């Protein structure tokens, strides 16, 4: 009955972070990578725009600028030591990806091509800088494929379509994970010295999201239930340009190539909100601007959307107005073919889902839930920390979107997530392998699978009077309305009450599917449990933070309050309640300033 596997290092998740960790850990330690999806189906593959690094291939750029932009982007909530570390490592990280074969687009000199991205600037002029290294508009896809391919080359052991359900702690140290094999429904125990979580985010708690169905916050929820804290969960990024209603992402690269936002009256509105970088301000700023336009009745046809315009004639017109030039000083121009060549996937999405051709028509867009800034607290080596004193839990690591280092603080800059995956994924892998070399296996508990089995039993034996799909639909809607771009106490309190109610209802759902083979209904229900746990923490932390900062905008507290709130939130789940504590922000070079773009 018992399926027990023993590995030095177990990586949970095979996205960019997990593969990078697996690749590095497997060099010196016996490593397994477990993933609920086939690795190439991970959400990293959806990333479009680029990965940030101050290569300076097209114009002057420096890691220090990248660092400052990231600190500023984070609304000063990011830990500056970690940010500096990441931005310095960025160059080598991107070069390493190239050496692994990643097909970046090229400059005429044959170097990696770069494009401007929101919030990335030349610190001297304040103008946007070309920092996002890209492979058309499928950079994430190419990173995911390349890393998976390198893992195959280096014979990393994969457990594909195994969903991790529980994390085992023995004597205060990591001892392994419990997973279900989707194809057979059997539980497996992975006995390990070190465990790395790289399970991605939880954007699926919102109705309109760019995130995959798989983004249900599994990793965060598992650790939360095991008594570990989550950091800065109130900070969730809403990307300004999602396809209306569907939420499918239209990369910032569109604006990087010169696209502009237009309201219902046909006016370009970003100069009002960010006079210097305009449509390339950071995401929180633009999302709020769009919301403000919509609220003040300047949405298109009074609806909840505005236009994104990348038609060559508009691009040229506004580029001339902004005085934008090519690297050689000539005025910036673009043709329909170039739009097509640089943004093929975006064009394809619009044609398929909207029946709109962006080369000749404008795209209807609305902000979409996009990125989890908060998550499992770690230090810059990926070691998971469990309290405000930065105590680490031996043997437990986290990297990627599920982790909170924190390099993104209150608002992530575009292109920094892919960078985060590669840099911290690598270091988590290295650290875990090093740890495993010296550590011993902790003994497994008598029945390591007990907890996971109990959760499944509960879902199989509920009274069956509630429908999981209904609960999930309600949750997404309420979260998107009350805990989204603009938040206030009343709304969030209401959301919290609702969550309590859904959690109660959740106890009464029952899955119809009694089988073992690919019981996706059971797993979806289990994932709903995770989402409810995570949503509760998100709402509670958001209610608790009485200021506005980055992705967290309170209507009742519209100002940033560095006096009282320049600190990270840590949240635990104790006795059915969310317990909150704080952790100081690491400030090295850059003192908080007002943030203008």
């Amino acid at each position, binding site marked *: 009955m018992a399926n027990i596997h023993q590995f030095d290092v177990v990586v949970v998740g095979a996205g960019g972070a997990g593969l990078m960790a697996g690749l590095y850990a497997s060099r010196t330690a016996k490593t397994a990578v477990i993933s609920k999806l086939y690795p190439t189906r991970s959400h990293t593959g959806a990333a479009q725009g680029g990965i940030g690094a101050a290569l300076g291939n097209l114009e002057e750029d420096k890691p220090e600028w990248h660092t400052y932009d990231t600190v500023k982007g984070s609304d000063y909530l990011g830990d500056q030591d970690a940010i500096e570390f990441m931005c310095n490592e960025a160059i080598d990280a991107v070069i390493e990806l190239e050496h692994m074969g990643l097909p970046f687009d*090229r400059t*005429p*000199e*044959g170097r990696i091509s770069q494009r401007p991205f929101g919030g990335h600037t030349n610190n001297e002029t304040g103008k946007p800088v070309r920092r996002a290294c890209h492979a058309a508009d499928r950079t994430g896809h190419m990173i995911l494929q390349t890393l998976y391919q390198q893992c195959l080359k280096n014979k990393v052991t994969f457990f594909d379509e195994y969903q991790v359900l529980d994390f085992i702690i023995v004597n205060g140290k990591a001892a392994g994970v419990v997973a279900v094999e989707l194809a057979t429904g059997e539980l497996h125990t992975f006995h390990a010295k070190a465990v790395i979580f790289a399970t991605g985010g939880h954007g699926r708690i919102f109705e309109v999201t760019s995130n995959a169905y798989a983004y249900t916050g599994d990793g965060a929820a598992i650790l939360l239930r095991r008594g570990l804290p989550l950091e800065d969960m109130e900070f969730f990024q809403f990307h300004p340009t999602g396809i209306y209603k569907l939420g499918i992402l239209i990369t910032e690269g569109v604006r990087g190539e010169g696209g502009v936002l237009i309201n219902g009256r046909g006016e370009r509105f970003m100069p009002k909100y960010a006079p210097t970088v305009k449509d390339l301000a950071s995401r929180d700023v633009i999302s709020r601007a769009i919301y403000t336009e919509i609220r003040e009745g300047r949405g298109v046809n009074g609806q909840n959307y505005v236009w994104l315009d990348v038609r060559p004639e508009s691009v040229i017109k506004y580029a001339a107005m902004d005085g934008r030039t090519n690297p050689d000083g000539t005025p910036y121009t673009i043709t329909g073919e170039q739009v097509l060549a640089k943004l093929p996937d975006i064009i394809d999405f619009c044609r398929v889902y909207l029946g709109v051709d962006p080369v000749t028509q404008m795209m209807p867009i609305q902000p979409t839930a996009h990125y989890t800034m908060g998550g499992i607290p770690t230090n810059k080596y990926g070691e998971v920390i469990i309290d405000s004193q930065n105590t680490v839990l031996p043997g437990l690591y986290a990297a990627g979107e599920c982790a909170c280092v924190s390099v993104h603080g209150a608002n992530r800059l575009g292109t920094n997530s892919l960078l985060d995956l590669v840099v911290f994924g690598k270091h988590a892998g290295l650290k875990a392998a090093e740890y495993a070399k010296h550590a011993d296996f902790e003994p497994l508990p008598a029945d390591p699978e007990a907890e996971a089995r109990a959760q499944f039993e509960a879902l199989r034996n509920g009274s069956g009077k509630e429908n999981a799909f209904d609960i999930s639909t309600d949750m997404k809607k309420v979260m998107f309305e009350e805990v989204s771009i603009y938040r206030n106490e009343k709304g969030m309190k209401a959301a919290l009450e609702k969550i309590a109610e859904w959690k109660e209802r959740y106890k009464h759902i029952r899955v119809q599917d009694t089988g073992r083979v690919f019981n996706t209904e059971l797993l979806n229900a289990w994932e709903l449990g995770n989402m409810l746990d995570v949503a509760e923490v998100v709402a509670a932390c958001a209610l608790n933070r009485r200021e506005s900062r980055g992705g967290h905008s309170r209507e009742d507290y519209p100002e940033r309050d560095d006096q009282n709130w320049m600190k990270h939130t840590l949240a635990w789940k104790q006795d059915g309640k969310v317990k909150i504590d704080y952790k100081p922000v690491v400030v090295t070079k850059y003192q908080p300033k007002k943030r203008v773009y």
Partner: protein
Amino acid sequence: MATTKPRILPLTKRGLNFEMLMWLFTRLTALAMYGLILIAIIGALIMGARTQMNLADVLRWGFMPNSSHVQSTEVPDLAPWSTPFWKITASVLLLIAVAHGVHGLVVIADDYIVSSRGRNIARIISIIMVIAFSAMGLYILWTS
């Protein structure tokens, strides 16, 4: 600027094996058959097929310029249709068609048969077929 060196792999490095040679052979024989059929049809027209034969008969002759194929038409004299020239043309066409056709059968067999034993058997049978049909065909062409 990165160097744009043309990359032409030497013969042994291309993966050009029997399989791919036969693939090429199929296309080249296809073109060759077109050439020969064209010659046969033009020849037939010169020899007066326009008034003496219908289209179907011309095509039949085209596919295999053997004088027995014009026996039942209104061609007055079979002699010009059975010169050595036509016999040679017909023979070449026959050899090519048999090789092309039998290899085509091997291709189809390979789609379904995957064990190397099965494939070897199919190849042996195909070689026997090529030899047997070529021999029989030539015998008919040169004795009729």
